[in-house]
């Protein structure tokens, strides 16, 4: 009987287009939209790039010291820091106005930096570029000031100091603590898979609703059948878990092989995490489906909204939402299933299999058991005087 229920639940899932849409198609569509909308995000806002700058030389003045600084910063073969365009003042101002350059170095005996106003927070990259230009001018002025002061007390040291100012030494060493993918855009895909896992709740809800005689005709028939309810529910939940996991696995494959999202870990580990996520999703749906006499459409609406709210708090729509919640109320993150799933992916990506990963999976399983047991308690031993 277990296998019979298992088989027919599989067939039902294949015929249930709405469930397939939520778990199979919707994440793919959203993943494609992420790829389109976010593909440029990191490159546009974060990646190291050359800053275009206009240099306006005042005709009667020469400033070799600053010229050396400019030459040093614009001569790197791969990605130089600056790309200077030499122009007169009017031309430079028009380049700045049309946003072709980020600032104008007006070079005479003194050096001044002129920038366009930067008034909105969407232009964070521009602010950073302007700040780098400001640092360059500040360094020039600082060095000049120090040289002048020392020249007054120890003029013999001036040649050595000038050669020091021309050195382009870097005093630091960058350490790499992880081979993982640190591009924050990847967390959108982590959350997308978390959302797909939570959307498996529709299948769980269907199982619960179709085992209650007051909610569906099929439930009424099942209630009068001699078949064990526990066996029937168990077989159907297992069957829908496997079918839903298959759909989520297809989504993972789509993101990894088609969208080329770098999850920073091996496919089996991603799938294991997704599988635990699916267990939670199915149990969550089973619990929601067991509550009260609410229509199927309303329950489906509640599941979509609650799942999306979980994912929103986890960062599906705003990237650093999870860390903001962590400062504001960390308890939410500790029990939010979407955070637990996406954090498991993050942990795999940055730290590999670790205690934190294990703890996340354990919490997910614990919440899933809680939902499953509550759902069972809600639908067990129900009798109806009249339907």
């Amino acid at each position, binding site marked *: 009987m277990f296998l019979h229920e298992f088989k027919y639940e599989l067939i039902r899932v294949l015929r249930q287009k709405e469930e397939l849409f939520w778990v199979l198609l*919707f994440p793919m569509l959203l993943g494609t939209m992420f790829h389109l909308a976010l593909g440029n995000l990191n490159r546009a806002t974060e990646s190291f790039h050359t800053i275009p700058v206009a240099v306006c030389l005042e005709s009667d003045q020469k400033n070799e010291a600053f010229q050396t600084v400019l030459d040093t910063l614009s001569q790197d073969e791969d990605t130089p820091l600056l790309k200077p365009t030499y122009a007169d003042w009017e031309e430079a101002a028009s380049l700045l106005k049309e946003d072709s350059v980020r600032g104008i170095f007006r070079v005479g005996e003194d050096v001044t*930096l002129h920038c366009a106003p930067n008034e909105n927070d969407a232009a964070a990259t521009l602010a950073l570029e*302007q700040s*780098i230009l400001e*640092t360059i001018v500040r360094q020039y002025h600082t060095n000049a000031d120090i040289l002048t002061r*020392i020249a007054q*007390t120890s003029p013999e040291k001036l040649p050595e100091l000038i050669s*020091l100012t021309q050195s382009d030494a870097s005093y630091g060493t960058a350490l790499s603590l992880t081979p993982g993918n640190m591009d924050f855009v990847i967390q959108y895909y982590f959350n997308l898979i978390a959302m797909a896992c939570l959307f498996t709740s529709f299948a769980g809800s269907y199982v619960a609703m179709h085992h209650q005689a007051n909610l569906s005709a099929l439930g009424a028939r099942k209630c009068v059948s001699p078949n064990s309810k526990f066996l029937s529910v168990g077989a159907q939940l297992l069957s829908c878990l496997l079918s839903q996991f298959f759909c989520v696995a297809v989504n993972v494959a789509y993101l990894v092989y088609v969208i080329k999202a770098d999850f920073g870990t091996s496919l089996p580990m991603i799938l294991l995490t997704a599988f635990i996520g699916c267990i939670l999703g199915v149990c969550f749906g089973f619990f929601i489906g067991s509550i009260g006499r609410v229509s199927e459409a309303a329950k489906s609406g509640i599941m979509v909204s609650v799942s999306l709210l979980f994912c929103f708090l986890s960062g599906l729509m705003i990237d650093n939402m999870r860390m903001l919640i962590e400062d504001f109320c960390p308890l939410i993150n500790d029990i939010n299933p979407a955070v637990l799933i996406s954090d498991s992916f993050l942990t795999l990506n940055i*730290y590999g299999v670790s205690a934190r990963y294990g703890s996340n999976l354990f919490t997910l399983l614990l919440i899933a058991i809680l939902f499953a047991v509550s759902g069972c308690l809600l639908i067990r031993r129900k009798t109806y005087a009249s339907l």
Partner: protein
Amino acid sequence: MQVFKAFLRSARKFLPVNLLYFVIFCSIAVAATKFNIEDETASFQTVSLTVGVIDEDGSGASKALCDYLSTLHTLTPLTHDREALLDGLFYRTLDYALILPDGFEERLSDQEEEHLYETVQIPGVFSSAFVDEQINSYLKALRLCLAGGLSLDDACSMTAETLASASNQVQILESETDRPADSTLTSVFYFYQFLAYIIISMILTGLTPILTIFQEENLARRTSCSSASLLGRNLQIALGSALYCLLVWILFILTSRVLYGPAVFSERGLLCIANSFLLLPVGVSISLIIGCFSPSGNAINMINNIVTLGMSFLCGIFIPQQILGQQVLAFSKYLPLYWYVKNNDLISGFGKEAFTLHAYGKHIGILALYSFAMFSVALAISKYKSAGKKA
């Protein structure tokens, strides 16, 4: 007004679910507004980042460097907790981690050039290059002082002094706009930007099921053979829809008033409100088109999520239009919410375009045209379907 009454009765049936949506959507809008505001920057000022510091040396020189950095950035003392460090870097709550190893002062005094400090940074990221540049600039100045014969303490003082006196090197070329930055107003702008997602969602999830009831085949046949005229029936449904949308809209305007106070009814706040009013015909027309196909409750949820999340991502509600790729923007110009966000950017100054009443009116006009076009499409589908049934 029987149809209108029936509309209200159906709406009442969906009231608990709609109230739940309202609470959920309100929480999302408020959270998004509250947290987005953190990034606000006004006119030019040097970018301030969050720099984590592990000072293993604890010497005068390392403290002087930290003091200098604290004038530019927010410094966070860190321990050797790899998880806290990498989590912070991944989520960008930390932009850069600086490690000043034991013996930093000694190596500095010995005029050593390499490995003075260590950093953990996000590879290939611009902000890391910025902090690197500032630290190198400081150390270079300090080394100049040391080479000039000063003691370490004097060198640190002179470096800090000269760097401080050389600050504020940027001269703003154009006069800034006469629209001062106001954090409450910025919250209002974010709220109204996010409102597009919320209102369209509320209309699609709340109104479409009611409209679908009237499209139900048997009910439609019964009404069409009654004494009520088709025009009267349609007008009553339109009145019900308008009432529903207005209530949703007013509820959100009142919510924004409660959250942000009188700033909502300032000149720019009112422009935002007027802009958001155009979301109602857009939402209703999309709802009418969907309703024509008499979808089930689940199908409405599906379509709603595709339409609203899709438009929100592509039109710049979740991610600013300034960051979206050119190809994405070229496509999203064909979606109504693109023009809504563009207007919001115009009012708030989030975009590069300066505010003009002409541009604002033009975008409002485009939104109205979209609504009109979609209403026409809904009517055409409805006509086509009813003609099909008669045949």
